[in-house]
């Protein structure tokens, strides 16, 4: 119990004093996971829309595979990626192993399925009558998709937030691809693992609290962006091709 209490005190202390090492770890965590979230969103939202708005043979099967990948263990993604990007692997030439870029790649791969799956269900949640209404009002296929994505914006935001949560909270990829190298690839989760192993429980708790504070800030900002997007997306849709 005292470890938890000490952890809280230490967390406040580390934050208030802007401890350089902790700040560097926290910043790297945020940089890697946010980059992974943005890249994954840029892939998952259009890909999810593509799957949702097209009818093709095996669509159901594709969706089931995506949903299955929600539960892929982070260490399995880490392992497969390790084999691909390690020096002797097919992508070894890129030199991504033990780099932040490699970790971004790993976390992106990890969270694409969950984002894509939730984007598909967000779009499925929009009533068919909305789609009919848009088409009857003279929307092109592209204009229709933009409006439906916009209509589903809050559910899509949830998909992105969940993706970010899974990215910043995972250890497997960060450890296997990053290697927990001090000042280089050490992030909050790998630091917590290390400190716990060394018996520095209070510091681990402090790092955990910092991780949650970062998550809180990111979620609040994403929510603000989504609300503001309601009016911005209009211009994007208006600028689309007119048939």
């Amino acid at each position, binding site marked *: 119990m005292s470890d938890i209490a000490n952890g809280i005190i230490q967390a406040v202390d580390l934050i208030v004093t802007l401890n350089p090492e902790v700040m560097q770890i926290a910043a790297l965590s945020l940089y890697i996971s946010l980059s992974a979230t943005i890249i994954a969103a840029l892939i998952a939202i259009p890909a999810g829309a593509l799957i949702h708005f097209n009818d093709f043979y095996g669509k159901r099967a594709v969706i089931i595979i995506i949903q299955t990948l929600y539960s892929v263990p982070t260490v399995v993604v880490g392992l497969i990626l390790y084999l691909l990007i390690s020096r002797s692997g097919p992508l070894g030439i890129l030199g991504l192993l033990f780099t932040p870029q490699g970790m971004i790649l790993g976390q992106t791969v990890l969270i694409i399925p969950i984002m894509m799956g939730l984007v598909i269900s967000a779009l499925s949640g929009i009533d068919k009558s909305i789609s009919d*209404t848009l088409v009857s009002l003279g929307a092109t*296929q592209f204009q229709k998709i933009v409006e439906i994505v916009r209509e589903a914006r809050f559910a899509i935001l949830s998909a992105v937030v969940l993706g970010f949560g899974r990215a910043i909270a995972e250890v497997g990829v960060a450890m296997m691809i990053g290697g927990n190298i001090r000042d280089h690839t050490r992030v909050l989760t790998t630091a917590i693992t290390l400190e716990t192993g060394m018996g520095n429980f209070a510091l681990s708790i402090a790092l955990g609290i910092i991780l949650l504070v970062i998550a809180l800030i990111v979620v609040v900002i994403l929510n603000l962006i989504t609300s503001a997007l309601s009016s911005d997306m209009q211009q994007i849709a208006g600028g689309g091709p007119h048939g």
Partner: protein
Amino acid sequence: MIRIERLGRSFGPKEVLRDISLEIRKGEVFTLIGPSGSGKSTLIRLIDLLDSPTSGKIFFDGRDTAGSEKDRLAIRRRMSMVFQKPAVLNTTVAENVAFGLKFRGESAVEAEKKVRFALNLVGLSDLYSRRAITLSGGEMQRVALARAMVTEPEVLLLDEPTANLDPVSSEMIEDLIVRINKRFGTTIVLSTHDMLQGQRLADRIGVIMDGRLAQVGSSLEIFYQPKGRQIARFVGIDAINGGQVIENTGGHALIRVGETCFEALTPIPVGKQVSLCIRPEDVTLTPSDSVSEKTSMRNRIIGRITKIVPSGPFVRVTVDCGFVMVSLITRRSCTDLGLSLGARVIAGVKATAIHVIPEEGNSSR
């Protein structure tokens, strides 16, 4: 304006529309009536090019609509549609109304002017910046109507626009439909299962039964000369069955039903089995003890009142004359005449008010 030729639409093995041929004229209000599930919505969706027919063709202003998606979009943009369930997007009323203009690349300044005009048309100017999902059903449907009209369509399609609305909102929508047609000359195609609404609004009516266009005509033709018992029942006529033509002198026929003889006008020859369609409002009731006087009522049948059902300012009185006759009279005359259950009355109906149709299934005999 719109010509439909031998149109058919199947969903899997289910044939929803069969062999529909129809011409909708420029500037008219055309109503499709028929029971729920008869294919009205499917036909309206096909006209709006939201769906493609399995067979047959639709011509819009002389142009075949079965072209490329680009051509279909261009034609679709000359029409607008209002759905049974109004779908509004989660944004302001003004933005909802502006969608059609936005899709057509209209400038923001121009769009705002048109949106204000359209909202004014449906009487919702005050709700300009309200969130659309907070509106009532009737208001949403008026927003849908403004949204449809803002692009100045040549054809306005309405699929059961008042089916989910309260009477006051329905009346408001009906008034708007009439005003739009008069003021802008918009061709209007409306579907409804409410035949009275069809009668109130339409220049011409098409009756759809089981995916077929059963009859097309003016409301008078549909309501007084239904082609067949199914249509008769749908438009609110209780047909008297089991009649037989026993005499026919140049179209003036005597028809026997059980013990009673009716006089009616029909070219159907002697010996044929027929049904008699009589609109309840054409049946008069006289207490049977009143002094018989000369009258133009050619048919006077004695019966006993078995049911009195109030219906608004009217009363539906069911009279058992060996067969059932229904009379629609005002509440007032019901009281004045002292009609009550079990009372004997004389049901009167003019020969000209009887519409004779061949009995189905026996017509080949």
